[in-house]
């Protein structure tokens, strides 16, 4: 009898225990059903991007409450400016790079439509790529790629839908071969899926930052845009994963010129997506610490007190941080070779960030040569030399290159760039420089004649700038 009583008590106790919260990842409650995609020859002539769930820039619109998000992102070919003087023949979603950000919530249905408008007449047709097939691959979706992500021809329209089952920040991109070229040409963007119950914190500001690389060269056909060279995809650099520009939101130093706003004491929620296509990002904000990092944009994947967040291609994270005081807080890819290629931006408590901040952080804001050789020289210099040399920022491990074309003649510089080790044995000036710089020899970079010419053009351009025109480029953090 006692035994029976004990069992009854145990059963009663078990019944009183609070039931476990529902599993938000219960696959039986997810929606994997969707109608077959529909492809038609019906074109579209209206806006290239439509939908209440879309945000066009870094500042994110609040979540649209509608449970069904109708989104149009048409594909276009157009010329975009990725850096001052660098006008690139791009391929886009929604006529912009990166494409607009889609915002939804777990359980929402995304009803997507896309017309391939790469065949639409461009103002200067020879500047844009020939019409071609494109497609859409949403990482936020769980659907048959053969049905939903099929490529469509110019003039065709595809429609399909999917349900957002997992929270996160997901990449979308064109998946048409060669995929690498389609992504590197600008065909990517972000889908933000909020948890069903929202985020566990309250943010004052929400921004999306999409990091990507460009691989460009002046057009072999020497086409001009607004008097400068047209830049096209550099296939060799692309396959070798040697970008010419690494940028946030499609623009070299774009958010330095137009900083994101925040006030002291505010909590900033930043949705960071590294689309690559081939480089890793070590995302950092100078002057603050990430209070929370939600890897892949999912609060269930939480880390606290992070200084950087490491994102491979197509990885993402929400980073939240406080703005402690007045100032300009610098977003960088802490792989500083990437930062020096343009992956830099500001979150500023003032509308126009004070110039000394930029100087302190030693990142060139805007001055860029337009001569293609000088541009290539600048890019190579920033990739290989900034660790040891500054541009107008004084000596580092090696001399400041500002003024170098006035200190040395071009033939000497060319020999020095080509064979520094031989010069150190025979040339008195080289020997003196070695002694002055703590016997630290300049490494031979195995530069070709063409590359040396580009470096010299860049150095000549630097020395032709009026005093104060260049921001200093001395060091990273």
């Amino acid at each position, binding site marked *: 009898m006692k035994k029976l009583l004990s069992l009854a008590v145990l059963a009663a106790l078990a019944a009183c225990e609070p039931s476990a919260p529902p599993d938000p990842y219960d696959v039986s409650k997810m929606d994997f059903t969707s109608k077959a995609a529909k*492809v038609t*020859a019906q*074109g579209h002539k209206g806006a290239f991007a439509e939908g209440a769930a879309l945000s066009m820039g870094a500042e994110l619109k609040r979540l649209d409450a509608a449970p069904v998000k109708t989104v149009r992102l048409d594909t276009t070919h157009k010329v975009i400016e990725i850096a001052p003087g660098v006008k690139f023949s791009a391929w886009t979603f929604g006529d912009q790079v990166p494409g607009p950000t889609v915002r939804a919530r777990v359980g929402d249905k995304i009803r997507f439509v896309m017309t391939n408008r*790469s*065949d639409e007449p461009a103002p200067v047709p020879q500047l844009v790529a*020939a*019409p*071609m*097939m494109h*497609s859409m691959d949403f990482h936020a979706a769980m659907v*048959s*790629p*053969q*049905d939903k*992500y*099929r*490529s*469509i*021809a*110019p*003039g*065709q329209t595809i429609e399909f839908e999917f349900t957002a089952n997992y929270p996160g920040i997901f990449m979308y991109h064109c*998946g*048409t*071969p060669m995929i690498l070229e389609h992504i590197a040409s600008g065909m990517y963007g972000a889908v933000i899926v909020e948890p069903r119950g929202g985020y566990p914190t309250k943010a004052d500001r929400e921004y999306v930052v999409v990091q990507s690389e460009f691989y460009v060269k002046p057009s072999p056909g020497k086409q001009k845009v607004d008097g400068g060279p047209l830049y096209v995809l550099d296939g060799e650099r692309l396959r070798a994963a040697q970008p010419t520009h690494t940028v946030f939101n499609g623009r070299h130093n774009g958010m330095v010129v137009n900083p994101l706003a925040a006030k002291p004491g505010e909590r900033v929620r930043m949705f960071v997506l590294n689309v690559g296509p081939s480089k890793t990002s070590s995302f950092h904000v100078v002057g603050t610490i990430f209070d929370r990092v939600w890897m892949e944009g999912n609060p269930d994947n939480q880390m606290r007190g992070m200084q950087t967040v490491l994102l491979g291609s197509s990885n993402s994270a929400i980073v939240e941080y406080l703005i402690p005081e007045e100032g300009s807080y610098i977003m960088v890819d802490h792989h500083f070779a990437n930062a020096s290629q343009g992956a830099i931006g500001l979150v500023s408590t003032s509308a126009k960030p004070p110039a000394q901040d930029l100087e302190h952080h030693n990142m060139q804001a805007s001055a860029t040569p337009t001569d293609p050789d000088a541009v290539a020289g600048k890019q190579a210099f920033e990739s290989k030399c900034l660790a040891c040399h500054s541009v107008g920022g004084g000596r580092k491990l090696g001399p400041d290159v500002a003024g170098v074309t006035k200190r040395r003649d071009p033939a000497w510089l060319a020999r020095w760039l080509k064979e520094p080790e031989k010069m150190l044995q025979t040339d008195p000036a080289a020997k003196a420089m070695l002694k002055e710089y703590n016997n630290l020899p300049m490494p031979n970079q195995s530069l070709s004649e063409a590359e040396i010419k580009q470096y010299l053009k860049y150095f000549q351009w630097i020395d032709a700038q009026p005093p104060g025109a260049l921001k200093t480029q001395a060091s990273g953090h």
Partner: protein
Amino acid sequence: MKASLLSAALLCLGGEAAACGYCVEDKIAATYDHAVVTRALQRGQHLAFFHVDGPEPRPEATRRALEHAASMPGVDKASVRISADLLTLSLAFDPRHVPLAAIVERLDRRLSARKLSVLPLRIMERPADLTSVKR
């Protein structure tokens, strides 16, 4: 031949399943040339896109074999596009002079020495209209 026909039928009926592991439309994209498409349709020609099946491991040899095989009356030689990477062939032809079935038959015959064959994936008779091939 029966196996090829069966594969082709599966490709067409299944819509997007591709024997090579790539989506049909992605294979088409590999040889899609808008200038060729526009010119061909203006002339009343049709475009045909084929999957190339077979063991040929050398891309250049495959390319040469396909170029040679596609050179036939009724096919616009300048329209021939080949992706050796994605094993796709496309061409414009004049349906008033040569039906698609005859092109397939001739291609298969000419490629048989290399143990290659073609499977028609899609045909384009009007702008922006890629349709399955009825056999």
